[in-house]
């Protein structure tokens, strides 16, 4: 099966992990279900992230494709994987624009390979958008409600 | 005739292509004929006007430019229920043909 899908490490513009990135391409979810040794998977908007749950521990990289920035299914896919205990690299690829970065980060993405490279300064500002957050997400940040009621 | 219209990027005001720039008054609109696409592409990139588009129009007996579609006629004059807020033109006959 071809492993030529997906982004390569040099297309990753932002990465919030210390480990070595996977050095080969991803396979589709369908292929991953068949290939018992696949450790890099690409999720398309119509895929069910929960299909990967039985073998999350052997997966080192999940790419989530955003063919259109307006298609928000990838945000749910990301949170679902993190909620299931996935600790590998979770990479947002495709039409990833500045104004989505902070929400993606909160949903558990720790690496970003946008189709078009983004301005570094704009991106840094974007990642720092939320001094505080209202709701729980995959990033385990203390929420405003938590802070209000800390003893 | 074919005329171009849009909304001014900064103010949102309705504007009409007058041949060299954008006017607030529909009677300044010129027939762009085949050049519509070229002008639209250039003007969209020039960032003065928001989402410009081409529409059909005619010149009426009084010499006024009259957009073909009711929506653009309302844009040309202002809300029919608040004529005091309409485009400040001298031509008040417009209200006769807006609908």
């Amino acid at each position, binding site marked *: 099966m071809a492993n030529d899908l997906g982004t390569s490490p040099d297309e990753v513009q932002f990465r919030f992990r210390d480990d070595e990135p996977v050095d080969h391409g991803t396979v589709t979810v369908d292929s991953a279900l068949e290939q018992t040794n696949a450790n890099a998977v690409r999720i398309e908007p119509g895929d069910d992230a929960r299909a990967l749950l039985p073998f999350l521990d052997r997966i080192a990289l999940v790419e989530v494709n955003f063919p259109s*920035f307006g298609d*928000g299914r990838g945000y749910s896919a990301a949170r679902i994987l993190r909620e299931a205990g996935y600790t590998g690299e979770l990479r947002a690829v495709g039409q990833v624009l500045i104004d989505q970065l902070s929400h993606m980060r909160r949903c558990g993405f720790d690496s970003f390979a946008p189709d078009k490279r983004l301005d570094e300064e704009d991106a840094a500002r974007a990642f720092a958008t939320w*001094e505080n957050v*209202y709701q729980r997400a995959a990033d385990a940040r203390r929420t405003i409600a938590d802070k209000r*009621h800390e003893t | 005739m074919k005329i171009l219209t849009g*909304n001014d990027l900064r103010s*949102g005001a309705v504007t009409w292509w007058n041949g060299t720039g954008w006017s607030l008054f529909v009677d300044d609109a010129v027939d762009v004929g085949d050049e519509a696409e070229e002008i639209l592409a250039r003007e969209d990139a020039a960032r003065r006007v928001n989402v410009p588009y081409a529409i059909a129009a005619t010149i009426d007996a009084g010499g006024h430019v009259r957009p073909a579609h009711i929506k653009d006629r309302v844009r040309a004059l202002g809300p029919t229920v608040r004529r005091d807020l309409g485009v400040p033109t001298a031509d008040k006959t417009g209200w006769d043909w807006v609908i």
Partner: protein
Amino acid sequence: MYKYDQYDQAMVDARVEEFRDQARRRIEGKLTEDQFKPLRLMNGLYLQLHAYMLRVAIPYGTLDARQMEMLADIADKYDRGYGHFTTRQNIQYNWIKLEDCADALADLATVEMHAIQTSGNCIRNISADHFAGAAADEVIDPRPYAELMRQWSSFHPEFTYLPRKFKIAVIASAKDRAAMRLHDIGIRIVKRDGEAGAQFYAGGGMGRTPMIAPLIRDFVPIDQMITYAEACLRVYNRYGRRDNKYKARIKILVHELGAAEYTRQVEEEFAHLLNVGVEPPREELARIAAHFAPPAFVDGPKTLDRSDPDFALWVDRNTHRHKHDAYVSAVISLKPAGGIPGDATADQMRVVARLARDYSFDELRVMHTQNLLLPHVRIADLHAVWTALEAAGLGAPNMDTIEDIIACPGLDYCSLANARSIPLAQRISERFAETGRTEVVGELKLKISGCINACGHHHAGHIGILGVDKKGVENYQLSLGGSEAEDVSLAKITGPGFDEDGVIAAVEKVTDVYLASRAGGERFLDTYRRIGMEPFKEALYGQ
């Protein structure tokens, strides 16, 4: 009512600066319109026929005098001296400039107001019963729950790019005064054996394909309400249609899956999310609820002097029973006969603010019927309130009558519209007022939409009118028998459409049929439900 703490204020202030930066980048050409549009929509800034339109959020329709005064100032400073109150309890300004918008938002932020998420494919303003905290029949004030949801839904990282917009309404009474069943999610707070819980309905909506939301869960314990909402949204975000803009609302998903299957998926996700733990701490609801403690009502007269017939009429029509018997809620009509429904001048807003301060514990409401409300007025003060309203052109005694028309802005303002709705509303209200028929006809909820998007809620009108484009000419379809209340129903089209004169005559004809046929104390809606469509069709089209 709720007051921001430093976290809420910082959030709104930061968003203003973020938008200021985005608008600057757009004006400088660093952002294309395609890239900027979703960003400006998230701050409620539309581009309409004549100008940019700003939709300012009024969370669950509640505001105080200071905020109403700011809305008046915004109208004067950045717009053309007036605003329009909407069917979702918000306010719209029609003449905003992009280059001024950040400044307007900054001014609003100084009084804890914003335009966040009043547009875009995200969770919109949470609406609530406009009589909340005052109604005699409410189980509990629904607004703390609405506020909890407001915070949960603001900048939710997972639900910022939904298939389509998402509207939630919260009530807490058997009576539905917020059209709850016609929302994407409708919540009714109930008490069972002394325990508070949330009844969840999902999949309602108007628009092109109106649907009534089925019951999804009869009782969610109140300290799991946010988790359940999150489950509902996640299923929608994952499986709502994204192939067709006109089939992308949750009502289509619920309809295509069937309520049972949608429910099953939600319950599965809910069980999962309970384990994940997304609910805010219990103390947060208590903290919010403390802001909604009832005002210090004082005892007083429970009756009044009805010798002035105009005053008596206004009291009978425009006041609503209050939980405290020395008080009523008083409707401020924005529907003067022949006027533009829902519009208020800056000066009128200031009058309303003063009245709130002087007579209603500094509290105001925006009704989804495009009127305003003073929720807590002492019966002893009613005459003074009425006198002031009359003087300001806000005293029309016509709540829920045929003059109390709900109309969208229509083709006079809106780029989506096919026909004008406001002139129709003006002519109809004028006609019934001048012939004295308004009072004779009694309760009749007439709703007008200028296009199939149904922002005027015409599907839920006792009489509904839909404006369409018939070969470049305005044409109007008439429908009968809709209701947005707890007896919810969708109106049915009578038959072929009419031109403007024709539909006004048609409205008169159907009210004639009602008056000739009504029995007992039947409203128009009751008579229609009893005798059916045929007698009305006959009157309209002959046989």
